[in-house]
């Protein structure tokens, strides 16, 4: 039996009014192993803590039970107290006789009985407590940012600003992301490129940041402070060292394909940069379309390149690096409209998505910034903007609100009026949502100043009618049916998670919600962390949001990264799983239920008689294990145990609590 001391707290009258403390102390003195029991008005006070330290010394206590408020309140306080007196902090147990006893029961007799039972339970557990030690883990002072949109750019810049080295991985040949595709930004109508490109250049010029464009994360291993990540850089077929970015190759390349950046509204070449301000401003050859790679002839780019930078023999490059922290900033995809035949998208050239319309507005876009109907190249007069296409639609789209459409549509309406004199925007909405600084005012301007007509009514169908488009709806407010002839329809299609988000989540062992947006660790209090320590989120990969929110989250993630990388070492949580190799069968049932990939197979060599035999057993990576204990139940022989909540401890608690 361990020499146990019990300290029962009055908590003023909080406990003492409902629990007979004298009786409890007397009962505690009779519990197995208890050599000292006493009471205190406020055990958490300095006097109370000193009483504990003093008793540990004079009574040579080996275990300490404090019967007081919830362990969620003061467990750490009292762990420090016992540690100060030379005991292992995990020799402390708390009996929660306030929140779970005196505060919820009225009858003093039964409450006292229960308090005694809880103390008895804590004493029984404490007797089986073992010394636990947090181990120190080194930290790799380098961060990885996945995704080179505004979120990734901001996060990378802020981490670098804090003095840490950052690798920025971008799937496309250039960083910039969705924001680079936008024309102006609400509610200030700043030009998107004007505020984004300086940041892109800053990233390129930063000594701390390395851009890996045209690259993707292949494999992630390890844990907080010690991730090992393999990045695949796709063969660009252009020697980045030699290329000067003159662009001659792009002018001469004979192959034209739909530009992804301009959503197919114009063509790009097979050797290309996505857009003129690309960073790095060096092209890549799209091998799927390049004539040399598809037909085995051409090599025009090689001939015209003055720097001799074209290299058709390049291969994908795999690079493995260690990182202390990872920021995921992979952005979103605009919703595909396959389910929405009623809007005639794809059936009539003048039905556009918002992002396509955005490209029409943009000075470097396909029309040089003029709003022209794709069908006839003439400016439209009446334009219908349809909101919530695939959003707030649990039947065949996303049940959630895409958050940005109300505001960018107000912007589109304003820009339409500015660019096309006499044009008239009609906005079909379900609700207009404009929470945000200066947002409501901006929306107000769209109809007050610019004369946009807002109609509360989801468009039921768009009928192509010769040159025109007929839009059928109802104005739900007046009850009037709406039949509108327009020249252009703009669909505010919903925000989807990136295709491939699920796969990336699996690589990173982070979770996603039902719509493949990455889950934050807590929706309110840990909005940029994930459940996997050391991995943080920024931007729309976590859920729809606008640019200011994205940037704020990116900076927040960067601070979290900097705080992590700034530490000398990490202290691991000592209440982790532990394998008793003697009992372990090696069937790895534990591995199957471990959410952290903390369990692996290990080959054990042991002597059996004169022979050495090898057998498989489970092994726990203490840095990865978070201490949930799911493995302990999956393990039929009870070979894997959870320190701090061992089978022995919980069984002892059960036995004691039922007495």
């Amino acid at each position, binding site marked *: 039996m361990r020499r146990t001391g019990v300290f029962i707290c009055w908590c003023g009258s909080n406990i003492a009014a409902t629990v007979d403390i004298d009786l409890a102390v007397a009962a505690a003195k009779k519990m197995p192993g208890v050599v000292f029991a006493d009471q205190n008005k406020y055990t958490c006070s300095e006097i109370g803590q000193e009483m504990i330290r003093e008793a540990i010394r004079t009574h040579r206590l080996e275990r300490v039970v404090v019967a007081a408020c*919830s362990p*969620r309140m003061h467990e750490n306080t009292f762990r420090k107290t016992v540690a100060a007196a030379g005991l292992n902090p995990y020799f402390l147990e708390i009996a929660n006789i306030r929140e779970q006893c005196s505060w919820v029961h009225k009858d003093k007799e039964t409450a006292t009985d229960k308090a005694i039972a809880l103390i008895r339970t804590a004493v029984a557990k404490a007797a089986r407590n073992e010394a636990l030690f947090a181990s120190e883990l080194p930290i790799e002072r380098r961060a990885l940012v996945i995704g080179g949109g505004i979120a990734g750019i901001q996060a990378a810049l802020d981490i670098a600003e804090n003095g840490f080295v950052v690798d920025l991985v971008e799937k496309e040949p250039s960083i910039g992301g969705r924001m680079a595709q936008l024309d102006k930004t609400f509610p200030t109508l700043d030009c998107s490129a004007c505020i984004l490109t300086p940041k892109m250049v800053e990233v390129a010029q930063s000594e701390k940041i390395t851009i890996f464009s045209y690259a993707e994360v292949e494999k992630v291993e390890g844990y907080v402070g010690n991730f090992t990540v393999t990045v695949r850089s796709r063969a660009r077929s252009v020697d980045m060292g030699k290329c000067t970015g003159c662009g001659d190759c792009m002018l001469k390349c004979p192959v034209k394909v739909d530009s992804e950046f301009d959503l197919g509204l114009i063509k790009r070449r097979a050797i290309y940069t996505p857009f003129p301000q690309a960073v790095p401003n060096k092209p890549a050859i799209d091998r799927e379309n390049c004539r040399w790679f598809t037909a085995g002839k051409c090599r025009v780019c090689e001939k015209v390149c003055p720097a001799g930078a074209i290299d058709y023999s390049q291969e994908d490059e795999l690079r493995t690096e260690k990182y202390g922290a990872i920021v995921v900033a992979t952005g979103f995809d605009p919703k595909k409209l396959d389910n929405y035949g009623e809007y005639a998208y794809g059936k009539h050239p003048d039905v556009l998505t918002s992002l396509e319309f955005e490209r029409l507005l943009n000075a470097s876009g396909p029309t040089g910034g003029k709003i022209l109907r794709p069908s006839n190249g003439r400016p439209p007069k009446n334009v219908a903007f349809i909101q919530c296409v695939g959003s707030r639609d649990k039947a065949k789209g996303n049940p959630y609100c895409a958050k940005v459409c109300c505001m960018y549509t107000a912007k589109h309406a304003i820009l339409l009026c500015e660019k096309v004199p006499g044009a008239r925007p009609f906005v079909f909405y379900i609700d207009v949502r404009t929470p945000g600084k200066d947002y409501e005012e901006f929306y107000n301007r769209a109809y007050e100043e610019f004369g946009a007509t807002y109609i509360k009514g989801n468009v039921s169908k768009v009928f192509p009618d010769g040159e025109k488009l007929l839009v059928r709806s109802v104005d739900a407010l007046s009850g009037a049916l709406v039949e509108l002839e327009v020249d252009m329809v703009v669909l505010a299609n919903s925000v989807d998670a990136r295709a491939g988000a699920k796969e990336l989540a699996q690589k990173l062992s982070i979770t996603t919600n039902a719509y493949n947006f990455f889950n934050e660790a807590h929706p309110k209090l840990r909005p940029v962390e994930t459940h996997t320590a050391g991995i943080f989120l920024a931007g729309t990969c976590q859920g729809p949001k606008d640019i200011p929110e994205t940037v704020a989250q990116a900076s927040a993630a960067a601070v979290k990264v900097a705080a992590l990388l700034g530490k000398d070492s990490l202290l691991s949580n000592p209440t982790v799983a532990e394998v008793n190799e003697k009992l372990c069968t090696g069937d790895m049932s534990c591995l199957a239920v471990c959410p952290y990939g903390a369990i692996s197979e290990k080959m054990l060599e042991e002597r059996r008689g004169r022979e050495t035999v090898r057998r498989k057993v489970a092994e726990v990576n203490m840095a990865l294990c978070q201490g949930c204990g*799911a493995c302990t139940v999956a393990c039929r022989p009870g070979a894997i145990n959870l320190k701090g909540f061992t*089978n022995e401890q*919980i069984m002892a608690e059960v036995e004691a609590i039922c007495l």
Partner: protein
Amino acid sequence: MPVTREGFEPLIVAFCCNWCSYAGADLAGTSRQTYPSNVRVIRVPCSGRVNPGFIIRAFQRGADGVLVAGCHPGDCHYHSGNYHARRRFTILKQMLDYLGIEPERFQVRWISGSEGAKFSAVMNELTENVRKLGPNRKLRDAR
């Protein structure tokens, strides 16, 4: 059973996960949502940590009702512990029922850290139901 149930006070053992249900129990305390003192809580990190063996042992040693309380599905602090618990205890509960042991004595509930009122309501309900069932004699050992 012909036992007089007058004055029978059941013992309820509740395994509460540290992150949701134990916090819910604490919240019941801070907001003074009373429930019978028959309920005694054992803190575990996660509902996925609760071994069916603990539950049987509680019944053996005289618990008249056992509750496992965890985070709501989707809210597990450890991603998936409560999902595993849900499978395990679905099986266990059906088995107890099949063996003729009143399934009402064994309950699994999802109680979040913000559901202090729910915690106390569940405890009231459980105590009342078990009180009606009378003492657990079927799994209890001889001691």
